[in-house]
């Protein structure tokens, strides 16, 4: 407010335009960053002797070329939203949750397991589908709670524990789903290892029948974003979460129970990822096959960072991520370029958004005083929380 009162003189049109330009800077920086990432990616494509414009045109058409494509892009980004929320929410409490992949997988497995109960067939969809989703929430929540519990009780670092739990989840889910002697969750009628498909009432309805389908889970994820924002900004718990994230010592001094908050945050974060996992099972294939959520852990961290741990910013970030992965297919088909080009561009987007110094220097975007407050330091060190 202070800079507007300082300059009360009449403004010319150009000045007003510049003011609007600078006011839009928080939006402009990501836009420029994406642009710059595509330019650098284009140079790489050019370097190996391909036409970047052709490649990008195919990519864009693959992302948003038709209603079907748009729906597929949104469908692809659905699990990313939940997984990224799991990372972002923990970030706000100063915790680094690398375990979204494991939490998602366990949530999906519990959901698939509950889906095999025969009584589910007789339930109306209004009960059966939420039941499966709840199963995912519980599974992911418990799996996410383990690192929180261990951190507060024994001081085990959540980074180590979540990484290890990811690996453990991948191995055991593979065993549960593919073991034939004894048969645990494997569908004995299927030739490839996978679980029994969920009964129809437990499936989430498809909004658009694309590949992958855009299902109700997307709406659920949007509601989850609102929920996370509400918890963080409008509740006492959220205040405690943010206080513990900014300064655990001060939070404890103020009478907050930092340990309880840490466990709670990890349980909630895990349940977000678990919900995303259950949503994928109930919304897309209807069954769980081993090795489905590979690399989602990496992606969710990147999306959470891209969105600077802001629950609303996660939606566009996740859509960007998901749609680029969808579009990459068409790009590969038409130009023969490997999908990895998209991965490189994604990494560059994150780089340029994070290292906004580059973008600000190149495009002369001025930094506002209020921007400084927004840049939350995520890496507050390894052992500082608690």
């Amino acid at each position, binding site marked *: 407010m202070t800079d507007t009162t300082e300059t009360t003189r009449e403004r010319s049109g150009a000045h007003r335009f510049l003011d609007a330009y600078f006011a839009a800077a928080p939006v402009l920086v990501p836009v420029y960053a994406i642009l710059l990432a595509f330019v650098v990616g284009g140079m790489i494509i050019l370097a190996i002797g391909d036409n970047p414009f052709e490649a990008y045109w195919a990519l864009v058409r693959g992302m948003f070329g038709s209603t079907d494509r748009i729906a597929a892009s949104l469908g692809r980004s659905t699990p990313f939203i939940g997984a990224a929320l799991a990372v972002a929410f923990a970030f706000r409490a100063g915790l680094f949750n690398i375990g979204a992949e494991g939490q998602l997988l366990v949530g999906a497995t519990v959901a698939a397991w509950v889906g095999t109960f025969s009584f589910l067939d007789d339930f109306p969809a209004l009960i059966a589908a939420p039941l499966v989703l709840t199963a995912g929430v519980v599974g992911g929540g418990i799996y996410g709670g383990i690192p929180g519990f261990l951190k507060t009780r024994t001081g085990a670092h959540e980074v180590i524990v979540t990484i290890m739990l990811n690996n453990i989840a991948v191995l055991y889910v593979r065993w549960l789903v593919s073991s034939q002697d004894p048969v645990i969750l494997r569908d004995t009628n299927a030739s490839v290892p996978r679980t029994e498909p969920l009964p129809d009432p437990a499936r989430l309805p498809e909004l658009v029948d694309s590949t992958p389908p855009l299902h109700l889970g997307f709406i659920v994820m949007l509601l989850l974003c609102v929920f996370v924002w509400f918890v963080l900004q409008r509740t006492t718990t959220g205040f405690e979460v943010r206080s513990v994230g900014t300064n655990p010592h001060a939070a404890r001094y103020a009478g907050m129970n930092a340990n309880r908050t840490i466990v709670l945050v990890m349980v909630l974060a895990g349940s977000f990822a678990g919900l995303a996992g259950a949503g994928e099972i109930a919304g897309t294939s209807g069954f769980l096959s081993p090795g489905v959520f590979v690399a989602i852990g990496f992606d969710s961290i990147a999306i959470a960072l891209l969105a600077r741990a802001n629950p609303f910013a996660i939606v566009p970030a996740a859509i960007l991520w998901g749609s680029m992965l969808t579009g990459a297919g068409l790009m590969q088909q038409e130009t023969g370029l490997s999908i990895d080009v998209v991965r*490189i561009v994604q990494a560059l987007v994150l780089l340029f958004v994070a290292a906004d110094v580059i973008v600000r220097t190149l495009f002369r975007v001025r930094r506002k005083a209020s921007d400084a407050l927004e840049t939350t330091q995520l890496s507050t060190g390894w052992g500082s929380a608690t």
Partner: protein
Amino acid sequence: MGVGDVTATTLPATRGLPRFGRLQTIGLIYALFGAFLTFNVVPNLERVDKAVTFEPPPDPLTLSFDPRLVAAIIGVVFIGTGVSTFLGPRLERVAHYGLIVSTACIAPLIIVLALALSDTADTNVLQLMVESLRLGTPIALGAMAGLWCERAGVVNIGIEGMMLGSAGVGFAVYATIGEGTGGTWLWISILVAILTGGLIALLHAIVAVSFRTDQIISGVVINLLALGGTGFLRSEIIVPSGVSSGESTSTIALPGLSDIPIVGSQVFTQKPIFYAMFVVVALSWFVLFKTPFGLRVRACGEHPHAAETLGINVIRTRYTAVIVGGLIAGLAGAWYSLETQGGFEDNMTSGAGFIALAALIFGKWKPWTAFAGAMLFGFSRALGTRLQILGVEIGDFSIPSEFWQSLPFVVTIIVVAGAIGRAVAPAADGQPYQRSR
């Protein structure tokens, strides 16, 4: 709060009661496990002699034993340790030694039980040790890479990317120019891999130190870039070159040491990066903790502003440390594509960089303990593979291979939660530094 609670806390009588803290919890677990072992597991084991060997066949040095006896002795040790933790402060020292002995007994116990439960008569334990060291090599190198960065105050979760990137570029050079035929080009490729690690680290330093971007974001960017970049490299350069696999580094028998009976042919006849790992760990310890330069690096990690007051160029020191770390990570990358496989696959490091990070935190940011962490990981992986080969059966249930593969991860969690406690990072780790004006 009830009245009873108040009197309990105010009365000095509580002093006489045994304490129940971390030590007692671990003691209780040991005692229960020891009792279960001695009174439930041992009576159900078959009475067949088993053996451990120390050499490959034929005619190895062998040590035979009755698994029931050995398991029973270890069980009694566990019970004794557990009981001693409850005997008050005077026996605390005994309890501590007991815990060390008991913990050291876990690995032999697993081998003994596995042998007893399988049809195999013997297994080579020395080879198991060597295999642990070999599998721990990239983890130890990755941990040293992290150590250098984080001691200088730069969080590095991009170790994974540095390893993967250098593995990819190293092999790409080897495949395209060296045609995968070994010789000089193999060594040049290893050098290229190391330098690639350094280059990626330079990117990390520019972004994290100069631009003062969040260091975790910078690390994630590096991981993503390496994943996409090496995938691109493989499909556009390595595959078209037609060399999908090349000759990897050959074993070198260390002169003198390799002539020692039994040990020489197994421990001192290994591949070059395996040896280099020990040198890197020792040098990292020496340089970081015994030289003025190392002291400067650590000062930048603990209190950069104080370091600057003493005339240390924080920015330059951080750059140096991060790049040294990158070079070490590059060597770890070369281990994957040029020492073990002689080839490159997408995401071939598969999370090893993160496990190295775990080893570093496990080792409380100190070189030798981080090395121990890496070796613990290597050991549990080697053990998992070995037990998988032995084919252990409990009753009718043959233990699935996934169980053995998960062993290193489970062991890491148990150790980190049970034995290590809180790890304290360098004080300024993760904080960008801006020169004071």
